[in-house]
């Protein structure tokens, strides 16, 4: 926290300024193509909401509709108590950070940061002070006279952020702002971003396809697929309690392990082994899922089913054992000193409490569970 008196008080006033953002039944059609389907999200004042989904699922489209850059086919966007559905972006009082940063190449860092104030006619002196403050907030105050081409990727990112915060908007919209940075810088900027959003307390919608980014940044995550909202909840919720196969498979790295099959005699036949299930009917096509960290590799015959070791990778803090069973490839996280030979037959044990059952057809989570044998 900044101990400086003025910024502390400003932070307070801003936090109380934060607006609720309601997205109701928002749709977007591109001709025949339905890019965003009935999106319904309530973003609480000051909340950091992450829109997560694979590329092409309509995240950017949704964000651009919230910004007013794209026309809404149907539905509404409400900021605070104001319906902005058909309001032009310039009257929405939002700030947006683009994936490309959209820094004007012919303007210096200072001119870029000050642009939102310049166009609204803020007098020069006041503007310069605001530019300096905003730049200081992102540690760019020494590079004000540079042009964007003379900056590194991370520095450009900071300038884009400064341009967004200078106006103290009622909402931040960010479209994959970190995706152009290298892995190390991305981790660092992620922390900065989270800290800054906390300090400013501005309602934020952040778009990404990277689930780690979503998990670390978000107060709540909204997971989208093919234009449809799949699940909305805190990172912990979506991780431990996924509503369907897609969410379960999308969250987590390495992803959840899946075994597919048909139920016979209240159980799932896996090779020579049978995993007994409760709450399912015979003949259903189901998918059984468990996370790599909720399973372990044991002696052959000792686990719930047997599989063959495919590879083992040391990542430093743990060993990732990949096993093959039929056509499924499963990954298990084991302690770093775990040793195993390739092509060896092993048993796989997993926690019945922490396993999930889905209907293979529509991917819905089933009210069923694995029975301890």
């Amino acid at each position: 926290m900044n101990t400086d008196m003025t910024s502390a008080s400003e932070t307070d006033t801003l936090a109380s300024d934060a607006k609720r953002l309601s997205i109701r039944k928002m749709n977007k059609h591109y001709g025949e193509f339905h890019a965003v389907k009935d999106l319904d999200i309530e973003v609480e004042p000051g909340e950091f909401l992450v829109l997560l989904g694979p590329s092409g699922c309509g995240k950017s489209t949704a964000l651009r509709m919230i910004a007013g850059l794209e026309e809404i086919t149907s539905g509404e966007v409400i900021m605070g108590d104001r319906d902005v559905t058909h309001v032009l972006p310039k009257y929405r009082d939002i700030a947006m950070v683009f994936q490309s940063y959209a820094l004007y190449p012919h303007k210096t860092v200072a001119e870029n940061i000050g642009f939102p104030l310049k166009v609204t006619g803020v007098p020069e002196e006041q503007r310069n002070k605001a530019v300096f403050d905003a730049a200081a907030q992102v540690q760019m105050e020494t590079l004000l006279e540079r042009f964007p081409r003379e900056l590194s990727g991370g520095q450009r990112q900071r300038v884009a952020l400064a341009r967004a915060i200078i106006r103290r908007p009622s909402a931040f919209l960010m479209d994959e702002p970190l995706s152009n940075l290298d892995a190390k810088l991305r981790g660092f900027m992620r922390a900065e971003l989270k800290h800054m959003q906390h300090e400013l307390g501005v309602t934020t919608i952040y778009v990404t396809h990277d689930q780690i980014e979503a998990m670390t940044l978000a107060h709540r995550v909204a997971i989208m697929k093919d234009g449809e909202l799949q699940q909305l909840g805190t990172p912990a919720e979506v991780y431990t309690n996924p509503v369907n196969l897609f969410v379960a498979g999308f969250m987590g790295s390495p992803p959840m392990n899946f075994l597919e099959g048909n139920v016979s005699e209240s159980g799932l036949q896996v090779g020579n082994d049978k995993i007994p299930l409760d709450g399912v009917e015979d003949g259903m096509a189901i998918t059984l899922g468990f996370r790599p960290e909720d399973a372990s590799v044991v002696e052959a015959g000792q686990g719930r089913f047997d599989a063959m070791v495919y590879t083992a990778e040391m990542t430093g803090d743990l060993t990732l054992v990949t096993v093959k069973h039929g056509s499924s490839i499963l990954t298990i996280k084991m302690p770093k000193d775990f040793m195993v030979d390739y092509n060896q037959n092993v048993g796989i044990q997993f926690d019945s409490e922490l396993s999930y059952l889905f209907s293979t057809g529509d991917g819905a989570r089933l009210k069923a569970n694995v029975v301890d044998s």
Partner: protein
Amino acid sequence: MSNVSNVPPRGLFARLFEPPRIGAMAPGAKFIVYTLLLAWSAFVLFPIYWLLITSVKSAADVNGGPVYIPFVDFIPSLHAWRELFVVDYADTLRAYVNSIIISLAATALAVLIGSMAAYALARIRYQPNLITILLFVLVMAAALFAIGSYGVDWRLVLVVGVGIFYFLSKAVASRVHVPLANGDILFWMISQRILAPIVVVVPIYMMFQSVRMLDTHLAIILTYAVVNLPIVIWLMYDFFNSIPKDLEESAQLDGATMIMTFREIVLPLSRAGLAATTLLVMILCWNEYLLALFLSTAKAQTMPILVAAMNAGERGILWWSMSVVIIVMIIPVVFMAIVLQRYISKGVLLGAVKG
């Protein structure tokens, strides 16, 4: 601190100049844009319409004051078309064929030689000696002066000149070296475009006259090719510079010679640039008048000369026939534009202009 007025302005002006919907245009702006664009379309198209109807007017329809709409104001007749393509077809056809041969050949030559030079300048480092170049120009000036003022035979002067130049460059230029760089060569080549045809055409005329090549295709082809070389070099240099070197380097590692690399890798990759350049050079060659006027008298006459020939002295200008010629001249260019269209990405000319 937030100075953005959240309230969209109301009032007549706002209603006219604020978009009613996101992604739409303000009605006022739309009205202005369409009005201006349609007005300019009319300004562009009306002369062409006039050209079309004049080509089917009789002499009386043209000379009796303006008539506008065929079948309403006047009865169109194909007499001018007939005259050019049936009665005088030999002249018309010759000019047409001449124009096609000359512009195709000149364009091909200019594009080939120009892109070779551009490629060389983009990839090889040259360091010509300024002194050698100055010596060359000096010797050339002296030689020309000898030919012009004293009537010395040009063949003799050529031989002696080459000898003197060779001697001098061995003697002087090998000792004093003022190196130029690729940029200088490029600038020199491109700057040739500053030369107005009128500056060089008289000596070119005399040159072709002395080798008895006036009124031949070759003379016009060579001249057009050189006049357009700067454009080719300029556009293609930029284009080649924008191609990553990796592919060529990998070809060289595979043992390809520079010529093979150029032919097999570079040229196919530059199709868009070549198409744009070809189209531009083609248009310039096809429409050129002044140089053709000097260099052709009868056999090698091109279409623009034929246009001017419709200004037939005592009979006045044959507007109808002239319109026909101008129209048939546009057709191949439009055809070329359509053929090359799909290769031309919109950025090609832009790249070079951006500098």
